[in-house]
């Protein structure tokens, strides 16, 4: 496949853009089949209650209303409860999760009834008329409160709020800690975050009643997973269910799930024989779409007096929320192996306890487990540095794993390729570190009310889920492969079918680049089909920075198969042996006789007419590859954040943000940079702005974009990016994922910078988000000598 690269790595503008720039995109809310009924879900305002009675009679009388049901009315619709695919331990507690609660509600937002009407307004008005009698119970929302003796039970039958405890150990942790010169102990609390994809969730189901068939359009990242699992929940043969993810307005993990409303639209379309549509209002989305993070970490580092880390000991308490959504229990495990980050050591242990609370379930939010792990190690290594007298740069350098290929880690993984010192140095150069340090010193000296801090994050993450056998060992309920089909049409145009399901990542462009270069065809001749189980039946979808390093590699390999077949056909047409041909820029030519050649498009036409094919060769020119990666990929980099902290108000401004990332070979630099920009913004948002807050009654107080502070352009800086390229050894393209790296890296860089700015005042820690008030309080306490 010795084709010269023409598109990969170059500045190819996105093919996705035109329809998005002109209003021609098709988001789910824009799909309304004739005769559609609008679904409105009546939700519990109480965090925990027995549901005594749900009376829908008044709603049924309202104008435009066609049907209304409570949980009991719908009980017969379910062949199984909503899916949970990651029972991390054998003895995990797993409560049944019904699309509409049957007899008790476990969080504010749990559905108790549904109303269907011929228009949106009528459905909303009638939902107000449903009368629900609750017997309110005591509730609990915080992790440690839920574990306390006598805590209200989220699920009484379990007798406690502990969902599971999972553990991992490598090496002799006890002996390592006993023999260490220095032990650093830190506790970090991760606030609960709301993913906030800009498109709220929506579902439309159109039945073909006579055939028992259903088409579901959903704002999902996972049409394939949704099809399998919803078929099981509804008892619909999988073959009768087509799931389409049309244009999807962002996901960040929140649409990596299978939701009650999807099951409801299917069940109600089946029951009523009409199309059913549900569109979340944003404040409804805040309750009914998964949240992220909400974790307490205790991390200990054992080290030598010289600052070399010997061992890691981590204890996690993770808030599951009220129910287990698709992969809720597994989220902490996605970070469990990387609490050592980029660093070495001889011993490693981690224990994680999942905890039920009366809150919206948590699940994957951008980075899922790895932002948490990275935060812990990147904060703790700063503390270690201060403990042994090393600055943040030196303590990192001293502990980096060596540059190389297939490097074993303390967490028991083998990192595909590493060069941690390289990104750190590049970032320092870009920043002009010495100059910023000098400015910091001058401000400290003058007692300026705007103090400067520099924060580092030399992150390393694991992504590209995943070798199926590794997932099996973690008790995950599905594989980690992905699929691609490459099809040359008779006219020489190319159709690519991918099992990835993009929602903003630009797969159509990147996949076109890969295909056009591999086959030597013009990029405009390549179409990419995705996100429809009838068109792309094989796939594992898009999450965990897996699309390129799994689905993209599958495409690369499928292109190889197509070329192999095309070469046989070309050889047949040229009356030579296949080995006598070489392939370049779309042409198969006889070695040494470049005039004797066939374009790959000609072989496609020949394969279609099938008038003259090699003996035994099938007509048609297409190939599928289902690729199961042999390892994860491990992107890395160094981010440096410079903050200015107003010591009088506690306000934090980001003055500079430098990021040097390494994701191996880059297909589309503009898209990669865009992923990093967006990722950093979400990391900064977590560090400084966002926090879901529940009150004592279990009501979500930050329940809209008015009081849950998603930052705008006005709050964020421009970013200074650079990259190094250390090809992955996991796949033959040498690529790694980049969708989550920015988010994983950013939060510790920001908080380390805030702490650095205030260290001389006695501040030792500031919790996330570092709101002006939190920062101000930290300064006040330090002035009173009260900080730690």
């Amino acid at each position, binding site marked *: 496949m010795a084709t010269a690269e023409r598109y990969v790595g170059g500045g190819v503008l996105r093919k996705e*853009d035109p329809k*998005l720039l002109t209003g021609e995109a098709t*988001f789910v809310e824009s799909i309304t089949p004739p005769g559609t009924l609008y679904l409105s879900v009546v939700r519990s305002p109480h965090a925990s209650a027995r549901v005594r009675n749900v009376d829908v009679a008044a709603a049924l009388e309202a104008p435009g209303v066609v049907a209304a049901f409570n949980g009991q009315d719908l009980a017969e619709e379910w062949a199984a409860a909503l899916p949970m695919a990651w029972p991390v331990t054998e003895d995990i507690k797993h409560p049944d999760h019904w699309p509409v609660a049957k007899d008790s509600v476990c969080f504010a937002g749990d559905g108790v009834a549904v109303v269907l009407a011929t228009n949106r307004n009528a459905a909303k008005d009638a939902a107000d008329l449903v009368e629900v009698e609750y017997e309110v119970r005591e509730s609990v929302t915080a992790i440690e409160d839920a574990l306390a003796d006598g805590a209200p039970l989220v699920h009484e039958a379990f007798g406690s709020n502990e969902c599971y405890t999972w553990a991992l150990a490598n090496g002799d942790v006890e002996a390592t800690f006993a023999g260490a010169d220095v032990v650093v102990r830190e506790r970090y609390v991760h606030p609960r975050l709301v993913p906030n*994809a*800009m498109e*709220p969730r929506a579902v439309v189901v159109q039945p073909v009643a006579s055939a028992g068939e259903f088409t579901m359009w959903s704002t999902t990242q996972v049409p394939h997973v949704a099809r399998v699992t919803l078929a099981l929940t509804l008892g619909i043969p999988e073959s009768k269910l087509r799931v389409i993810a049309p*244009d999807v*307005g962002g996901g960040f993990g929140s649409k990596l799930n299978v939701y009650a409303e999807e099951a409801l639209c299917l069940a109600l379309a089946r029951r009523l024989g009409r199309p059913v549509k549900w569109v979340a209002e*944003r404040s409804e989305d805040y309750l009914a779409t998964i949240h992220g993070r909400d974790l307490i970490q205790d991390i200990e580092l054992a080290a030598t007096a010289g600052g070399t880390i010997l061992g890691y000991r981590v204890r996690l308490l993770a808030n599951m929320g009220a129910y287990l959504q698709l992969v809720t229990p597994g989220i902490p495990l996605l970070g469990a192996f990387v609490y050592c980050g980029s660093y070495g050591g001889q011993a490693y242990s981690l224990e994680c306890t999942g905890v039920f609370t009366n809150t919206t379930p948590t699940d994957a939010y951008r980075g899922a487990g790895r932002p948490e792990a990275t935060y812990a190690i990147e904060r703790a290594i700063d503390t270690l540095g201060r403990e042994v007298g090393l600055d943040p740069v030196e303590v990192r350098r001293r502990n980096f794993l060596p540059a190389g290929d297939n490097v074993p880690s303390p967490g028991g993984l083998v990192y595909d390729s590493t060069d941690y010192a390289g990104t750190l140095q590049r970032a320092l150069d870009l920043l002009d570190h010495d100059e910023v340090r000098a400015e910091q010193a001058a401000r400290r000296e003058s007692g300026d009310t705007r103090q400067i801090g520099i924060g580092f994050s030399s992150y390393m993450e694991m992504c590209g889920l995943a070798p199926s056998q590794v997932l099996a060992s973690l008790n995950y309920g599905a594989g980690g492969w992905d699929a691609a089909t490459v099809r040359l049409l008779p006219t020489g145009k190319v159709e690519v079918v991918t099992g990835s399901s993009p929602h903003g990542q630009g797969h159509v462009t990147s996949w076109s680049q890969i295909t056009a270069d591999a086959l030597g065809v013009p990029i405009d001749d390549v179409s990419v089909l995705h996100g429809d189980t009838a068109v792309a039946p094989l796939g594992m979808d898009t999450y965990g920075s897996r699309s390129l390093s799994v689905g993209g590699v599958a495409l690369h390999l499928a292109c190889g198969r197509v070329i192999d077949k095309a070469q046989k056909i070309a050889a047949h047409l040229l009356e030579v042996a296949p080995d006598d041909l070489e392939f370049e820029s779309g042409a198969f030519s006889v070695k040494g006789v470049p005039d004797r050649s066939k374009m790959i498009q000609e072989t496609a036409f020949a394969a279609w007419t099938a008038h003259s094919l090699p003996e035994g060769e099938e007509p048609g020119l297409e190939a599928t590859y289902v690729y199961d990666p042999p390892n994860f990929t491990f992107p890395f980099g160094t981010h440096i954040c410079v903050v200015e902290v107003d010591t009088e108000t506690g306000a934090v401004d980001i003055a500079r943000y430098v990021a040097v990332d390494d994701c191996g070979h880059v297909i589309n630099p503009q898209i990669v940079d865009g992923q990093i920009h967006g990722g950093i913004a979400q990391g900064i948002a977590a560090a400084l702005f966002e926090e879901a807050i529940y009150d004592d009654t279990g009501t979500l107080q930050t329940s809209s*974009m008015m009081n849950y502070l998603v930052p705008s352009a006005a709050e964020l800086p421009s970013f200074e990016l650079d990259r190094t390229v250390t090809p992955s050894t996991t796949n033959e393209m040498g690529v790694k994922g980049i969708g989550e790296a920015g988010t994983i890296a950013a939060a510790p860089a920001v908080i380390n910078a805030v702490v650095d700015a205030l260290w001389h005042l006695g501040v030792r820690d500031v919790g996330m988000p570092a709101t002006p008030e939190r920062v101000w309080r930290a300064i006040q306490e330090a002035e009173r000598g009260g900080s730690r």
Partner: protein
Amino acid sequence: MPMRQISVTVNGIHHEASVEPRTLLVYLLREHLGLTGTNVGCDTSSCGTCTVLMDGESVKSCTVLAVQADGRELTTIEGLAADGEWHAMQRAFHEQHGLQCGYCTPGMILAAVSYLEENPGASEAEIRHALEGNLCRCTGYHNIVKAVAAAADAMKSGATRSAATP
């Protein structure tokens, strides 16, 4: 409730519609007129996703009643290109990779167009601040700000529209 008759001009085309008074402008556009390019991102007037131009000025169409738009001129994302030529802002968003999922994009573009019409000489810092009412979750705004700055240059040099695709 009695319906109200209103007339609006959207993207240069005159429309009459009969609406409930409570109908929000965004639903007039999306559901009565079939202009689904304007998206809805929140219910608290916070995100700016639904921004359209009313008499040339940016407004959040979720916070205007359809009846308040009676007699007004509206521009939605569908009407920004003219005679097959994109607006400089559309082109700049494409060239600078100022969009990913594209959901906030129509509102972001129209907010930016309105701002530059009022402030043609805006600096990058002013542009950043002026987009305070439009949330994006994908881009981190870096390329959006670059795109608006690039469009500002193009608009200043008179190239408000240019050929559709590169």
